[in-house]
């Protein structure tokens, strides 16, 4: 019995195998591909493929699908990397060098031409008036210290390998650049905080008005002896304030985008952020160089405002006459004016 079943099943199988090709034959006949990829209709079905030239006509980069959960890997080719390369290596070092060295040269020439701006002695010389309180000075210096480290470590990205690396060797420079990068990333946060605080503290004194226009027309007192009127901040200082606020905001925005790469932007967005960050950074550094010059070497008596916070009354009367009047009206006998105190400000 078992033998009969086996025989029967073998027969069924054999019949199926014999009949099968016949049954599938019409299907095979319908397939136009006969042999060696040749299509009797003359077309090459496999040749109808995408190609690089066609894809670049539709989009500026070639993107596909990848099986790894890293979205950035889906970009096959982005030729914009070459453009980024030519900007960063072709233009940026020249832009940086021209702006920063140009500013240094301009300040040097100005110093040789004008010299240190002095204030004529009056009977008010020696008396002190509080210009910036401790909190204002704290905010300024926190931002300033961060800015100096950020600008040096930032310039290191562009010029470090050109200037410093040949001097100290690649290993030492690598370690230094690593620490510079950490400081750049971490000190960016107190810098952003400081800029925000300075903005809040000084915005009320920095709204542009008509006095500023007169100040600009008078050349800010740099030309000639007579000083134009100015309130707490003159037009030049207001310019510095708005530069720090504007550039600080732009640097913060682009910087945060770069700190969290690809969080919101794609690869081209990251490149643009880097370009904006570096260009504004260079102009910012050049601007702050002028600010440092006029606050220290360029003008006698100006540094005290941020050093001890108290400036000479004669200096204040000359440069910020409207502000002195305002302060004296506010506290005629108050603590604002150190009446008769003649001790010099501590040298810082």
């Amino acid at each position, binding site marked *: 019995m078992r033998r009969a079943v086996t025989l029967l099943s073998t027969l069924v199988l054999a019949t199926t195998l014999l009949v099968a090709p016949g049954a599938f034959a019409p299907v095979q006949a319908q397939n136009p591909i006969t042999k060696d990829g040749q299509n009797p209709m003359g077309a090459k079905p496999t040749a109808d493929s995408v190609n690089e030239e066609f894809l670049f006509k539709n989009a500026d980069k070639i993107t596909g699908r990848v099986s*790894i*959960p*890293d979205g950035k890997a889906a970009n096959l080719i982005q030729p914009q990397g070459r453009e980024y390369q030519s900007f960063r290596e072709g233009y940026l070092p020249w832009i940086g060098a021209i702006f920063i060295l140009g500013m240094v040269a301009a300040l040097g020439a100005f110093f040789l031409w004008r010299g240190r701006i002095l204030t004529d002695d009056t009977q008010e010389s020696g008396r002190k008036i509080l210009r910036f309180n*401790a909190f204002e*000075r*704290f*905010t*300024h*210096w*926190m931002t*300033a*210290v*961060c800015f100096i480290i950020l600008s040096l470590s930032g310039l290191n990205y562009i010029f470090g390998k050109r200037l410093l690396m040949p001097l100290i060797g690649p290993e030492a420079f690598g370690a230094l650049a690593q620490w510079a990068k*950490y*400081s750049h*990333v*971490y*000190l*960016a*946060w*107190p810098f952003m*905080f*400081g800029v925000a605080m300075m903005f809040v503290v000084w915005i009320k004194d920095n709204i542009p008005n008509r006095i500023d226009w007169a100040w600009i027309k008078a050349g800010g007192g740099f030309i000639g002896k007579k000083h134009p009127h100015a309130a707490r901040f003159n037009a030049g200082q207001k310019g510095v304030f708005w530069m720090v606020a504007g550039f600080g905001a732009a640097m913060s925005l682009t910087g945060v985008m770069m*700190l969290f790469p690809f969080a919101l932007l794609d690869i081209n967005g990251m490149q643009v952020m880097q370009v904006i960050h570096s260009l504004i950074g260079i102009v910012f550094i050049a601007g702050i160089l002028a600010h440092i010059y006029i606050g220290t070497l360029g003008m006698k008596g100006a540094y005290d405002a941020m*050093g*001890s*916070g108290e400036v000479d009354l004669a200096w204040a009367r000359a440069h910020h006459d409207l502000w002195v009047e305002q302060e004296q009206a506010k506290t005629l006998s108050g603590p604002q004016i150190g009446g008769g105190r003649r001790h010099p400000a*501590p040298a*810082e």
Partner: protein
Amino acid sequence: MKAFIVAVIAAIGLGVAAMYALTSNQKFAYQAFATTGARVSEPGANLVGEKWTGNPSTNDTSESAHGKATGEPSHPKRS
């Protein structure tokens, strides 16, 4: 001068705080680029080192088992 020193200390303090905040925000590549189906527990340490700094020479590889890495697995194992 006092304001300056306080400013420097505050800058360093905020910088250190930012360092901790940013470091805790970071993920290892094996955590970030794994799906729930993968559940990577031993992502490997060649090329990146035990601490995934990318520099094996700074870590002593002699003590710990091969392929172990610090940090949490990408996804907790289902029980």
